[in-house]
């Protein structure tokens, strides 16, 4: 596997709280190859964001801690690295964009200053050159009047435009991997379409890999090559995107796909939506055995006894279910 960029092995990121240990990420394996778009999907609290932040070590420690596992970036484990060494990796090698473009930009600096700061920090350029670089990045992400807009503050941009600014900032050092944490969740559909299109363009231009974290199956289907489905801190299924939608093996993935109404099919109205009963279990004291067992319609005795490992059912298609 010469072209594996990121290889997460058995990662456990836990949080110590008053009542015990929250096992937010509990043994996650995930790998991303060069130039590949991998989707990480799951519902709120399944650990997808914590996984992403663990990669850049953006987790507050304490209360968080790496309990086990490795995060191999081009073969080198990131977990033992100190802040100084991590800063060399951040932005230059791996960059991240967040869900809330308003709260992740600093409101008291112009967007130009903020992008130029990233450029200057990593590329040893004069302030003037860095500012020119910032304007160039804004132009790349299709913000009209970039020369003028670099001097504007975040509140002068709309939600979609702010997300463009975030993307410009993230790409300013041409990272090999872009982690996009719910980049379009706060946006309207027409703006979402623009941003997804932009990410696509940027990918073609810079050839970076993308780790797309989302809860929207539609977004995954349209943008990703491979998908990892998470549930309650664990990976339950991993497959190429066509295989996942054509032949979902894990009952949770099946439920997730079937519970979304689809506008491209005429059946709707008459048919009831398939729903998954119950709610996500607490990660404070997760159930023994398969974490989905309590909501699973196929659950058997064996499901509550041991945690099913990921098994390969077809090339590149792995699932954690006894069935």
């Amino acid at each position, binding site marked *: 596997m010469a072209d594996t960029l990121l290889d997460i092995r058995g990662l456990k990121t836990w949080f110590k709280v008053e009542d015990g240990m929250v096992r937010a990420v509990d043994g996650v394996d995930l790998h991303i190859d060069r130039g590949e778009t991998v989707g990480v999907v799951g*519902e*709120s609290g399944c650990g997808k964001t914590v996984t992403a932040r663990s990669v850049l070590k953006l987790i507050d420690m304490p209360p968080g801690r790496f309990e086990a596992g490795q995060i191999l970036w081009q073969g080198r484990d990131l977990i033992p690295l100190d802040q100084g060494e991590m800063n060399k990796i951040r932005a230059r090698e791996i960059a991240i964009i967040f869900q809330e473009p308003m709260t992740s930009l600093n409101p008291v600096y112009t967007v130009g200053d903020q992008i130029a700061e990233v450029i200057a920090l990593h590329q040893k350029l004069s302030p003037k050159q860095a500012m020119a670089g910032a304007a160039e990045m804004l132009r790349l992400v299709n913000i009209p009047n970039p020369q003028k807009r670099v001097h504007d503050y975040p509140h002068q941009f*709309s939600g*979609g*435009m702010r997300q463009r600014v975030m993307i410009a900032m993230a790409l300013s050092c041409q990272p090999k991997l872009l982690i996009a944490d719910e980049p379009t969740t706060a946006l*309207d*559909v*027409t*703006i*979402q*379409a*623009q941003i*997804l*299109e932009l990410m696509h363009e940027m990918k073609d231009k810079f050839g970076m890999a993308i780790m797309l974290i989302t*809860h*929207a*199956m*539609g*977004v*995954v*289907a*349209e943008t990703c090559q491979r998908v990892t489905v998470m549930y309650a801190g664990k990976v339950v299924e991993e497959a190429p*995107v*066509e295989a996942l*939608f*054509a032949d979902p093996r894990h009952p949770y993935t099946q*439920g*997730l*796909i079937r*519970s*979304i*109404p*689809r*506008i*491209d099919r*005429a059946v*709707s*109205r*008459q048919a*009831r*939506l*398939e*729903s*998954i*009963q119950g*709610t*996500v279990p607490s990660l404070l004291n997760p159930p023994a055995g398969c974490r989905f067992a309590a909501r699973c319609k196929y659950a058997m005795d064996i499901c509550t006894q041991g945690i099913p490992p990921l098994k390969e059912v077809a090339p590149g298609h792995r699932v954690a279910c006894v069935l």
Partner: protein
Amino acid sequence: MNAPLAPAEDLLKVRDLRKRFAVRGGIFSRTVDQVHAVDGVSFEIGKGETLGLVGESGCGKSTTGRCILRLIEPSSGEVWFQGNNVTRMGGDELQKLRRDMQIIFQDPYASLNPRLKVGAIIGEALTIHKLAPTQKAMEDRVVQLLETVGLQPDHMHRFPHEFSGGQRQRIGIARALAVEPKLIVCDEPVSALDVSIQAQVINLLEDLQEEFGLTYLFIAHDLSVVEHISTRVAVMYLGRVVEIAPSRELYDNPLHPYTEALLSAVPIPDPTVKRKRIMLQGDVPNPIRPPSGCHFHTRCPIARPDCAQRVPELRESKPGHWVSCHYSG
């Protein structure tokens, strides 16, 4: 369940509804500008029907919903409910009306009083409308309502923070049902929920509609959810209805270029489906100074020079399918 194209009996009629919010500024807080949140909206909802109201943030869909209930006072226009003019009603009449019209809010975390137990939250409406003569009658009714929405009777003794998002939305629904309303305005009832929970709540709303013969005004930005639950759908853009049609018809043959773009922007959860996407340029314009003529002409792929001058009327292009565009349909 085949929805009638032209409902026999209109439960609710909205005529040329407008709402302007004042923008205040300067040292004397004078009105310096106005936001045209709702700019001449008309539609009707038949008994037992679900009318979906879709559009992007800031298009005025929630304001429309609230004006109907007079939670926000409309600036002009009329709302008729069962032949009575809601916009003219005084205090007592309005209170009686609110027994017939209820609302479910988007955020199940913010819309339940955190200091009241669930029993009190649901029971409050019963007390206000004097529907429970005794404490016992009230408790019985609360238990019955909790069971109707799929919760346990003993949940009445708990506080809202003890529930998950989906369960809280069920509490909100139970509260709306308490007074046996005829119309429920559902304002983004599932947008804050995870997909698997979203499906549970949508199914519940559909079951309740069947059981109690409810009429819904279903406000949402998620087009696939709206298509699923609605009999007819109205699309709003910058305070105006641009198209209104039976649900399937709207999705199969969108006439307004905005509807078309909106539909094509929805990601389809199937990687084998490849569609041509109509990409809209730019953002929704500022509702303080909306574009002249047709509000959509600044982003419209088929706009012609006169679109900036003439305001298009909503006209019936084919039976039941209304569109407001000079050049489409």
